[in-house]
């Protein structure tokens, strides 16, 4: 039986299919920054998202958040991202952004801790108030959470949950870690 607390995969794929007649517009943004190897680094991801005006009215992502995004999908520990992962990231980010915008009604670019708690719950995570509070505390400045911090938090939650899941063989919400593996899996996030 699937442990319930993990959180459903983030909602939000391409709304009803993207205009994929000729070429995927995302591919355009991607290839502008990717080099010969078809991989992008954190800096290039930042440039890419900024160029695509992903953040819209919000401030562009800072470099640390981009680094977190790369490592969320970095299965081969290459510290870079190919186009398939980029598309996956775009879908996930779009879902999170839609959600953030639905909470940030006054378009201030920030949400308060209560709204953040709701956001975490509505993503499907089942955490105690203490756990949620300590997570939120990490990302608030002056009691507010910016879009960038919100995304960083979502990315981390997802990465850590993936890491945990892999070591929860029985899917009971309990995982076993050997020390060396714990260090490496946790530091890779």
């Amino acid at each position, binding site marked *: 039986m699937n*442990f319930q*607390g*993990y959180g459903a995969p983030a909602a939000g794929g391409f709304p009803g299919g993207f205009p994929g007649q000729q070429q995927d517009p995302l591919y355009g943004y991607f290839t502008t920054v990717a080099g010969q190897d078809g991989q992008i680094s*954190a800096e290039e991801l930042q440039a890419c998202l900024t160029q695509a005006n992903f953040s819209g009215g919000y401030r562009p992502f800072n470099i640390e958040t981009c*680094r977190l995004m790369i*490592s969320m999908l970095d299965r081969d*520990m*290459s*510290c870079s991202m190919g186009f398939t992962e980029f598309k996956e990231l775009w879908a996930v980010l779009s879902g999170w952004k839609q959600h953030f915008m639905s909470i940030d009604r006054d378009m201030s670019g920030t949400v308060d801790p209560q709204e953040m708690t709701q956001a975490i719950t509505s993503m499907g995570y089942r*955490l*105690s108030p*203490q*756990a949620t509070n*300590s*997570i939120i505390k*990490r990302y608030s400045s002056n009691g507010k959470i910016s879009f960038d911090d919100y995304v960083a938090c979502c990315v*981390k*939650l997802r990465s*850590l*949950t993936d890491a*945990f899941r892999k070591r*929860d063989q029985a899917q009971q*919400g*309990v*995982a*076993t*870690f*050997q*020390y*060396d593996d*714990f*260090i*490496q899996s*946790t*530091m*890779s*996030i």
Partner: protein
Amino acid sequence: MAYQNQYRPPQYNNAPPDQSFLWNIFQRVDKDRSGAISDTELQQALSNGTWTPFNPVTVRSIISMFDRENKGGVNFNEFAGVWKYITDWQNIFRTYDRDNSGFIDKTELKQALTGFGYRLSDQFYNTLIEKFDRQKRGQVAFDDFIQCCIVLQRLTDVFRRYDTDQDGWIQVSYEQYLSMVFNVV
């Protein structure tokens, strides 16, 4: 097993420095003469060899390690600990910076961390450098090297707390795992 007795950087047992020597340094660093060295003052006094400011996260970690009164700075008594801590790290850094470049590259980092007792895959060192190298040179400067070791140490400490039978394995719930790790990495 390596996990047991490792990952404390080797303690350098130099003779404790002369009090007046320390006091001279303290006064020079405590620019506003407040009697305590703040994050900013410590940051200004330290060099990472790159002509860019010392990693502020590392400065914060060091101050909070020795600030027993939670005042946001260190007084003269606490400063002795700070001085020793940094001097030890300088010695370690010099030891492992074998080509004397002022930076620790991947090979040197491997030697350092293996020397401390960590057992990490070759691939993982790429991740470490990507994560901690603020200069974007593919090598770590002095402050980033300290930061990397501090985080590794914190993770180890939190692991140890859960490894009650000390066998190098822990079993944790999802919530425990998130609380353990979320604020460290």
